[in-house]
Every structure is written in structure tokens, then in C-alpha cells.
């Protein structure tokens, strides 16, 4: 990067907040997305909204691209640098500014780790429900920018449902405040929602007001296995029709079950086609009754085995079957590509079967698990990036799975974001009009195209 720019940035932030050594730049070239790397021009660690304002004013005047990044755990390449860009890393803006028990809100800086917020909320008897897989290291800023989900989507929704207000630095360097601490607020356009899942293309989020909820008093955990995916899917539908809204309804397919058992030795039966992890939380009397009802429904649909956890320890053991899914699959092959095609709940069985057929058709290995309650699947491709022939087949498989998801009324990404990884599939989903509106919105916020250019759409 131009020395003149570097020295102006150093004047703004101080020497230790500006990285330019090749080794330092190299390690900000990736996030958690496989097979993507790009070297930035410099990496900055601002610690205030004002500093970010000054950085963006400079970048906008000089037409330098700016890519915002938290801990770099994204799965769609959203925070992969643009060549020679400025990376704004928010990890030092990591203060929880306030937990307001009267209004049930938390005001935080973007670099706060999701798990730290959850801990702080729990210490006040409250609860922050979104729990992405990377919760221990992902930042709240990154969660908002990607609208991250997690295992509790069915009952508690996703990050978007907890964002009440945002402070955002715009490309011009101006500071926008949108939203309030009011549960009801219909003043003007709902601008804050534009920034949720915008992946840093519309502004840099510098402060977030989040909604918290009371911590549930109890939780019951069940694990059931089924002879077919259809049986598991029907169980899920019947539970929801009962009506019960469990906080978790997670699914593993046969391939994933066998990898999990190999890795975690939980004692899972290997002669089943599908496994469901079910959790209900709330008042102890209600969770008890709901757990019994879910057990009955699973048995009515031909479950091979149903276990209800007797205590927290056993609940933890059962839940580890689902939590181990991703690591267990990751150990099997050198390259793991985790996708998140999502369909309406009633089309789940069809989608899972299609994924399995696609794997057979292209002679590739795909383990599928995911959030059956909200239709969000994680087909996980097990491959080797050095095997170009196989990677080609993987890409063909991908494309067909996304096409199928769209055909079933679903979407190409439920919680990871479009970023770079799914950019080419977006037009098919949103159509020409949708794409035009995206472009108009982008131009309105960022006329010089400096904010994370080339992500989501062109």
C-alpha cells in the first residue's frame, strides 16, 4: 500500500494499530471459507466510531476498498479481502457498554464475542438466543453483518430478531443511528434491517443495541433415530402441528451419524437413516409434558429408539451428537465445504433425498445435517482441494443442489450469507428486478463502491 496512505493511517490510529508486514497481511487473507485467499494492503485496529469515520473518509476520498472483519469465522467468504484493500478489524472494540435489565437490552461494541455477551446476559438472569456454531469466537458485529442463525432458530429466530438499533459509519464517514430501544418504532424506513446481512457492503457497524429475553427455567433433551428420512421429517411436522414449538429440532443423516460415532463414541445406532435431536425449554411442567409428547410422536412415526435425557449431564452427551457433526465430518477429508441450502420445512425430506442422489450421481461424499425445525440444511462436501477433477464434480453438485432448493421455494443460504461463495447463484434466486434493487441500494449508500466491493452481487 502507498506509503502516503499508510502514514496518514498511522497518524490516525498509532503505529501499533496499523499492520503492513507481509506475514501480518497474509494471515488476514482468509476467513473460515475453504479455498479462498487474498492479500490486503493493510490491516487496521480502530477502537472508536470516530476513528472508523476518519478511516472511511480517507478511503472514500482516495477510492480505496475497505473490508470489515471480526474474528474471521464467516463461511461464505464475506470478509475475504479485496486485493490491496484496507481491512478494518473490529476485535479491539470489544466492550459490553450496558446491560439494561429494565428494558431487557444490551448495548455492545461490534467486537464483543457472542459467547461473552451470552455469559454477561446469563449473569443477569437473561439470555441471548442466537448461537452460531462459532459462538465462542464469532463477534456480534459479524453476526449482525451476516444475520447469523444457530440451533434455536425455530423458536427464537435469528440475529435479525434481536437487533433493535445500530450505529453505522457510512462510506462518506458520516455516522448513522437507526432504531431505538422501543419495542414499537415505525418512524421512517426500517433502515437497520438493511444492514443486517449486508456483509459490510453498506457501512461499518460500530455499536449495536440487542434485545435479550428471560432465561428459560428448564430444558429437556431427547434423541431419536429413524429408519428413513421421511419418518424423521414427518415426526418434525407432527410435533409442530401438535402444536409444540421446541427450541431445537436438529437432524443428522446416515453418513454424518457414522462419522460422529467414529469420532465421539456416543453409542449411536448405525443402522438408522436419520437422527433427531430435540430440545424444549421453558417452565418445568411444560417442558416435561412436551418432552413426553415428542417421545410419543416420534414412536408413532416408527422411531427405532428414543432417549430422554435424565439430567444435564446426559442432555449434554446427547446434544454432543449434533455438536460433533461438523468436526466429525471435517476429520474425514482434507477439505470440507459446509453449505446451507434452506427449504420450507415441508420440503425437507425431498431436499435431503435429492442431496443424497446428487452425491451418488457425481461420485462425491456429502454428509448432511442441519436444523430440521427451520428447514436449514448443512450439506457438507468432503473432498480435497488438490483433486481438481473431484472439485469440478463438487461444483456441479453444488449448482444442482442450489437449483433444487430454489425450485422447492427455498433459498441458497439460510445463515452463512452470500459473500463470494454463493454470489453466482444469487441472480437465479432474486431475479433481475431483485438484482436491480440491490444495485440501487448499494449505490445510494456507497456511490464510490469502496465498501467490500464484489461481494454478494456485481
Amino acid at each position, binding site marked *: 500500500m502507498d506509503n502516503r496512505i499508510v502514514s496518514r493511517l498511522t497518524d490516525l490510529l498509532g503505529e501499533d494499530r496499523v499492520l503492513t*508486514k507481509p506475514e501480518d497481511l497474509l494471515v488476514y487473507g482468509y476467513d473460515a471459507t475453504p479455498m479462498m485467499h487474498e492479500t490486503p494492503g493493510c490491516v487496521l485496529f480502530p477502537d472508536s466510531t470516530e476513528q472508523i469515520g476518519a478511516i472511511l473518509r480517507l478511503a472514500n476520498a482516495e477510492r480505496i476498498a475497505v473490508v470489515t472483519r471480526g474474528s474471521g469465522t464467516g463461511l461464505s467468504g464475506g470478509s475475504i479481502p479485496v486485493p490491496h484493500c484496507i481491512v478494518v478489524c473490529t476485535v479491539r472494540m470489544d466492550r459490553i457498554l450496558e446491560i439494561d435489565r429494565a428494558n431487557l437490552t444490551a448495548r455492545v461494541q461490534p467486537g464483543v464475542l457472542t459467547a461473552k455477551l451470552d455469559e454477561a446476559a446469563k449473569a443477569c438472569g437473561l439470555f441471548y438466543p442466537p448461537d452460531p456454531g462459532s459462538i465462542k469466537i464469532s463477534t456480534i458485529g459479524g453476526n449482525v453483518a451476516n444475520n447469523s442463525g444457530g440451533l434455536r432458530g425455530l423458536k427464537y429466530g435469528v440475529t435479525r430478531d434481536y437487533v433493535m438499533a445500530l450505529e453505522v459509519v457510512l462510506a462518506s464517514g458520516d455516522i448513522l443511528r437507526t432504531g431505538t430501544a422501543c419495542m414499537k418504532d415505525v418512524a421512517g424506513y426500517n433502515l437497520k434491517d438493511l444492514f443486517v446481512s449486508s456483509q459490510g457492503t453498506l457501512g461499518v457497524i460500530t455499536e449495536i443495541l440487542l434485545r435479550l429475553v428471560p432465561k428459560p427455567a428448564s430444558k429437556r433433551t431427547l434423541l431419536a433415530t429413524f429408519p428413513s428420512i421421511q419418518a424423521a421429517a414427518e415426526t418434525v411436522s407432527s410435533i409442530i402441528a401438535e402444536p409444540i414449538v421446541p427450541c431445537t429440532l436438529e437432524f443428522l443423516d446416515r453418513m454424518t451419524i457414522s462419522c460422529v460415532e467414529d469420532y465421539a463414541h456416543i453409542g449411536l445406532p448405525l443402522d438408522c437413516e436419520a437422527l433427531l435431536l430435540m430440545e424444549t425449554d421453558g417452565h418445568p411442567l411444560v417442558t416435561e409434558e412436551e418432552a413426553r409428547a415428542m417421545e410419543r410422536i416420534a414412536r408413532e412415526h416408527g422411531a427405532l429408539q428414543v432417549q430422554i435425557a435424565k439430567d444435564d449431564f446426559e442432555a449434554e452427551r446427547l446434544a454432543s451428537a449434533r455438536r460433533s457433526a461438523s468436526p466429525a465430518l471435517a476429520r474425514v477429508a482434507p477439505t470440507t465445504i459446509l453449505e446451507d441450502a434452506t427449504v420450507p420445512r415441508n420440503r425437507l425430506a425431498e431436499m435431503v433425498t435429492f442431496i443424497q442422489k446428487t452425491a451418488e450421481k457425481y461420485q462425491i461424499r456429502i454428509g448432511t445435517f442441519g436444523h430440521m425445525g427451520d428447514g436449514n440444511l448443512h450439506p457438507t462436501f468432503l473432498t480435497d482441494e488438490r483433486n481438481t477433477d473431484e472439485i469440478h464434480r463438487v461444483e456441479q453438485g453444488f449448482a444442482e443442489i442450489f437449483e433444487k432448493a430454489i425450485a422447492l421455494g427455498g433459498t441458497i443460504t439460510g445463515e452463512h450469507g452470500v459473500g463470494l461463495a454463493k454470489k453466482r447463484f444469487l441472480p437465479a434466486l432474486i431475479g433481475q428486478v431483485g438484482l436491480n434493487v440491490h444495485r440501487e441500494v448499494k449505490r445510494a449508500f456507497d456511490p464510490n463502491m469502496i465498501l467490500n466491493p464484489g461481494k454478494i452481487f456485481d
Partner: protein
Amino acid sequence: MNRSQLSDFAANHSMLKDLDYSILQQCIHCGMCLPTCPTYDATKLEISSPRGRIALMRAVADGKLETSQTFAEEMYFCLGCLACETACPAGVNYNHLIETARVEVEHAGALDSVKRNLLRNFFLSWLFRSRWRLRFAARLLWFYQRLGIQALLRRSGAMKWLPKTWRDLEALTPTISDSFTSLDRVPALSSSRRVGLLIGCIQDVAFAHVNRDTIYVLEQNGCEIVLPLEQACCGSLHAHNGDLEGARAQARRNLDAFDVDLLDAIIINAAGCGSQMKHYDRLLENDPVYMQKAKVWSKKVRDITEYLVEIGFRKPQSDPASHGTALLAYHEACHLVHGQKISAQPKEILKSLPHYTWVELPEAAWCCGSAGIYNITHPDMATTLLERKISHIMSSGAHVLASANPGCTLQILAGLKKQGMNVRVEHPVSLLADAYRNE
């Protein structure tokens, strides 16, 4: 290989390029290691995280990065605590990677200086290659400590004339044991098991009583103990400092000294050594002479706490009236909990002791900063970690702290002393031996 041959070798050769690429590829850069890494936690810099270091190693292997000084410094800034391995969902063998990267650094000579090379030669190629040299050096230190020279120097205030690094080092010198470990065969009272015992280097000269307690406890549990005279330092010091050839030499000496086929297990009571000894199979995988023996050895190495639980150790008996209320906490040595995944066993032993009340140590599995010779090479980071550990010991209210690694014990004792805290630090096996003796 002499120096010029070595640099020729380095010019045409990269350890990281030679490494099985799938070991590097195993890292899916998910970032789950970041919150568990003490150096990332302190700096919030990606380059000082396991994920960042692996990315650098991969760039070297790909020929995209030179073995630069920054690369070299970062490889040695790592504590080698292996907390990242525990957190890693993808099963990355970080220990293997960091050891290889350090060999790369040494081959490339990226950190060479006259002083560093002299010190490395003295410690790695001379002192820790011979038990007798080490014992001789320790005996000199013992004279210094016992003849009152140390006390005199400390009292007289002469210490303050020493440079700060020397003063810090002096504070870390272990108190040398009056007598070292006796190397004799110990027949069992009623022998049903025969085990070998590696007496270690620091353990032997500074904590010889831990070796005696280990022998006593094994005896009490019906084991015959074999202590070959020719046994050597485990080689972890070499492996952690980019000298894998030195580590291999130590491993071969131990494989020669112990007749693994005649032993049920090879016992070790120092976490760092155990972690190294369990990897002799990998270390010697390309050695046609020792490969097979190393495989058997690696299968048979047991940490003392692991072995005692495995054989169903005898629970100490006591009169309930004599039960004490001293609070006992456990510091999890990195190379036990992360390096060997041993955590439940020492706790099971400690909880069986009748004279203590168990308390949890917050962040028990977070590195204390000792990390082999890290507290000497990186005193600032080591001190930050030590202060964190000491504050947790203080908040736990423990009267006795159990620690199963001599490096940790020395480091924590130095920290406690600096704070003026009166907490005993003991190896779990010493506490068990005491309990047997008090039956």
C-alpha cells in the same frame, strides 16, 4: 553436519515443504482455536494465533513466504501449550506442525546470533545430553544454595547489581534436591506388574522426592519398578526447540535402556516428558532400526496418574476423625490436559485423598507461562500468564495446589513467593504417597 553443510542443506530443503501436506491442510481455519490460545488472547493478533501460525507454515510450504525473522519469532512466541489441539474440531496435529516449523527456523538460521547459538549448543548438545553432566551442574548449584552463598547474595542486596533478566532467572532456579533419584531395581512387595520409570532431568535433580514418592506409590500398588542406569532425558527440550535430531538421539538411548517387551508400562511423572515420550513412534517413523520398538514404547508409556487409575489404585484409608479441611486445588499442566488429554485421572486421585477438601481452580487448564524454557526466552508474556494463574489460585482460597509438571511447579512457586503467598505446591503422587504413609 557442520554449519556450512547445514546452510547448504537449508538452502535446498524445507522441512515444511517435505511435510505431509495433508497435516497442514487439516486446518479448516474455522477459528475455534483462537479463544483458547494465550498469545492470541493477549495480543488479539491473528499472526499470534494457531490458525495464523498454520497459515504462515502453509505459505512457507507453498513457497509463498520465506523463513523470515518475523516467521521465526512467531514460531517461538507460541507457548506450545496445545490448548488449540483440545479446541480443534478438525483434529489438527499442531504439536507436529510447530515442532517442524521450529526445525525449519533453525535450518534457515533465521534467528542465529553468536549468543543464541552458544546457549543452544551448551544446553541442547551438551548439558541435557548427559545425566552425569546435568547432575554435576546441579550439584554445583546445590553447593551455591546450601553453603549460604545464595542466601548471602540475596540478603546483601548484591542481586540488584545483576541485569534484570539475570535476577529473574535466579528467582526461577530450582532448589536442588539433597540426593538425586537412586537408580536401582525396586522389587515389588507382591509383584504382579513390572513397570519402567523414567526419572526425568529436572525432576531428578530438583524434585527427586517426587520420583521417590512415585516409586513408593507404585510399590504400594504391587508394581516392580525398573530404573535402568542408562536412561536419558526424554528429548522434549530438543523437540520443542527445533532440534529433532537431538530428540531422536535421546529417544534411541531410552529405547536402548528399557527393555519394552518385558515391561507392562513405562511410567513418567512429568507432563512434558510424557507428552514427548508418547510420540517416539512418530519421531522415529523413518528409522528402520528403532521404528518397531518405538511403536511398542509409545503404546506403553503412561503418566503416573493415568496408570494408577488404569490399574485401579488402592484408595488411601484413614480415620474419619483425622480428616482435615485444607483446601486442595489442581492446576492442569498443558502437556497433561492438552498434550495427553489426561484430566479426569489426577482429579480422581486427588479427590480420593482423605485429608483435603476439593476446590475448583478457575481457568485450571490455561497455561501458567512456564512452557519449558519459555519463561526464560519470553519473560514478559510468561509473567503475564503467571500473574493470571496466581490470581486464580488466590481467589480459589486453596492451601495446597497439585501440579503434575516440574516446570509448572517451579513457575508457580516463583509466582507465589513474589506475592508472599503461603500455598504448598505438590505433585498429586506425592500427596497420595503422604496419604498412604499416614494410614
